[in-house]
């Protein structure tokens, strides 16, 4: 069995690939549903109803899409430059911390000024956090996979310390949480009686902006060149280290903005369960999207559908909501296979 590169990949094939991959993943996961003794069709119908079956369900799914778009973009930008940022989770919390610092009464500006400031501060905090492992990588060749991953735990422990210690809100009846963001710092709700907030628009705009950056600008060209072949990029005179550092600031900044979004759009105050691993899920989202900024929107939506749907399905059936993680994980594998098959054909013998 051998792989032969295809000369030509048609648009239909490029679109059908990921769709078939997702269907294949669901087919594989139906085995697990069967195993837990439920009907496959019922389970999947409930899953989609739970995610998209009502106005409220859709709004919830889009709310979750919002944060996943931002963490997905963070991973996609960094991975394009072959900067393996696994620290999205830590950068997300760092962004939330910065917004908490400034947004709980320190600045009492009008919303039009305060909200952008909080986003900016969050982005800066996330970016600076990623800057540390990045400088270690560019100047001392320290592997960033290890450092960014471990930084996540350090930041989580820092947040732990903050919400149990100095930032603990005395009005919170002993719960470990920071003081709430003041009203001027909160994002407006987009749909009445739902939790869908204006962060969704911020996420969409970010995806579009990153697409423009990668596709049409000098910076994007440099990021892609460094990612595709760092030696050749250096040879051609591209400032490789500067490009990687710039990428780190953008990537960390996006993850930081994800944290701000969750904080001022949804939760209102900093706790330890602000993010159930959105930073890590962002990596899956980016990979599912083939690192394409606009594709991130679709893959973030897909992952949000699966997670929200599985939550509601598991309430009705005896299928655990861990099925969501399995579906996304299996989809990641099938999408990778489909990407391979759109580029190569299999020859037997």
């Amino acid at each position, binding site marked *: 069995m051998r792989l032969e590169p295809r000369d030509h990949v048609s648009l239909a094939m490029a679109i059908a690939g990921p769709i078939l991959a997702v269907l294949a993943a669901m087919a594989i996961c139906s085995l697990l549903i069967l195993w837990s003794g439920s009907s496959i069709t019922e389970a999947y119908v409930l899953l989609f109803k739970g995610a998209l079956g009502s106005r409220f369900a859709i709004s919830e799914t889009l709310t979750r899409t919002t944060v996943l778009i931002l963490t997905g973009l963070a991973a996609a930008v960094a991975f394009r430059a072959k900067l393996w940022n696994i620290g999205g989770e830590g950068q997300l919390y760092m962004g939330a911390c910065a917004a908490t610092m400034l947004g709980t009464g320190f600045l009492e500006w009008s919303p039009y000024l305060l909200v952008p400031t909080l986003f900016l501060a969050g982005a800066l905090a996330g970016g600076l956090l990623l800057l540390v492992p990045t400088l270690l990588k560019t100047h001392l060749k320290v592997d960033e996979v290890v450092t960014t991953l471990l930084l996540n735990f350090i930041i989580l422990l820092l947040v732990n310390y903050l919400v149990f210690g100095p930032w603990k809100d005395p009005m919170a009846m002993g719960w470990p949480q920071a003081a709430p963001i003041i009203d001027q710092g909160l994002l407006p709700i987009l749909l009445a009686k739902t939790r869908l907030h204006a962060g969704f628009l911020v996420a969409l705009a970010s995806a579009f902006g990153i697409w423009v950056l990668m596709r049409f600008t000098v910076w994007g060209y440099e990021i892609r060149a460094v990612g595709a*072949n760092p030696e050749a*990029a250096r040879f051609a*005179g591209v400032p490789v280290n500067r490009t990687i550092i710039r990428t780190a600031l953008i990537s960390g900044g996006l993850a930081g903005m994800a944290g701000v979004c969750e904080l001022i759009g949804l939760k209102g105050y900093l706790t330890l369960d602000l993010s159930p691993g959105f930073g890590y899920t962002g990596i899956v989202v980016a990979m599912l999207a083939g690192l394409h900024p606009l594709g991130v929107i679709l893959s973030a939506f897909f992952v949000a559908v699966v997670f929200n749907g599985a939550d509601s399905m598991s309430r009705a059936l005896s299928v655990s909501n861990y099925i969501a993680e399995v579906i996304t994980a299996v989809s990641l594998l099938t999408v990778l296979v489909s990407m391979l098959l759109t580029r190569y054909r299999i020859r037997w013998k």
Partner: protein
Amino acid sequence: MSRTIVMSLNKISKHFGPLLANNAIDLELAEGEVLALLGENGAGQTTLMNILFGHYVADEGSVTVFDQELPPGKPRAAIEAGVGMVHQHFTLADNLTVLENIILGTEPLWGVTQHMRAALAKLDRLSQEFGLTVDPKAQVKDLSVGEMQRVEILKALYRNARILIMDEPTAVLTPPEVESLFATLRQLLKRGLAVVFISHKLAEVMAISDRVAVLRNGKVVLQAETTQTSREALAEAMVGREIPEPKRTPQEAGEILLSLDQVTVFGTQHKRLLDQANLTLRAGEIVGIAGVSGHGQAQLADLLSGLQKPDEGRLTLRGAGEIIPKPSTMIRYGIGRIVEDRIGLGLIGDMTITENLASESYRDKKFSNFGFLRFNVLKEHARQLIEDFDVRCPGVAAQVRKLSGGNMQKLILARVLSKKPIVILAHQPTWGLDVGATAYVHSQLLEARQRGAGVLLISEDLDELLQLCDRIQVIYHGRLSESLDPENISLQELGLLMSGHQTTAPKAA
């Protein structure tokens, strides 16, 4: 003398999609002869050999070795029938000894020591019989390239090969090593072996082969006794049209453009990779650097590419004085860099032709505005260049990875030469290219020389150096020799210098 046919390929055809890689190929190989298989890259030799060794299954046709038809698709069958292959890129394990490499894959599960003893005896007998001396206990990584090739040949003989297929065997050898390889081949022939010699170097084919077969577009277009044909006829058959050899016309060299003054570059463990190298390059001349690969050419090329700073000594450029090499500096001062490693360093395979052609100038005002690339200008620029430099490609949005080696090199030439550089570094510019593309590269370098550029040509192809250069310097263990006059030096003398011997060769003015 009647010919005993030891191997015959009968009407072999193989399709890859719409491409007909082999078209009803008929070839015969007789005992005691060398058959040269000539052809440009992609003419079908590789496919044919893969069919012979069972890696591909032919659509039609059969292979007969010693009167037995080989079963298709069985890699072991050819080896067991007595066919051995010596690859261009050696398939040896560096950290094993010669003996271990040779028996690798033949050792039984039990009784390894005993097997080793028997193997050593057999190896001794073989080396004596064929005059192939190699120390069986030496580690392969300590061997010279010529010795490694001997190990490859011994490996085939150890497996009782009676037919030897050699893929571009001289590509990595110095002239003396080529002579010694030819002597070895003659020994093999005397003992009744038969050799298929795959090459595109005409001089060597004329020297060693008894018969030649020329492949073009998957077909045998010419088959002849070597004595009955000529270099010109073979070249024409390979390419399908006449190749005008670019000629160097005498011209006066101008002012000094670039000079290296006592430049030393240290490697690991304080090894001198470049050792007090002196070099001057003048306007309107081509200076050649001859040498066996690994003697400091890479460092010299890196120096001019801006990837390597001199640890000692000075690099001076006309109009800039002493400079510290950096890629962006070299680009700014108009140094055109054609590097050896096209896909690893010269180009970015996953990016498009447009993007690659812009990689050294995307920050120019012409190509970008307020941080945005002007894609329309870039595309027009790319279209113009692929037309001027005759790059064959599906379009400017095509990925560079998908181009052939020759077209990749044309792309690099287009990017470099369109900026009219005053100094040009060309490191192995025709390596792996076919006759047509090689002639094109040569004519472009000569054209640059004519308009007054200085060219530093680092090459392992001595014919190329003698044909193009105004002066030649030999590099050996990081040291550059005096300038030699290519008109007054022979291949043999160059070969001796390349292996570290001093000669009394006449110096260039």
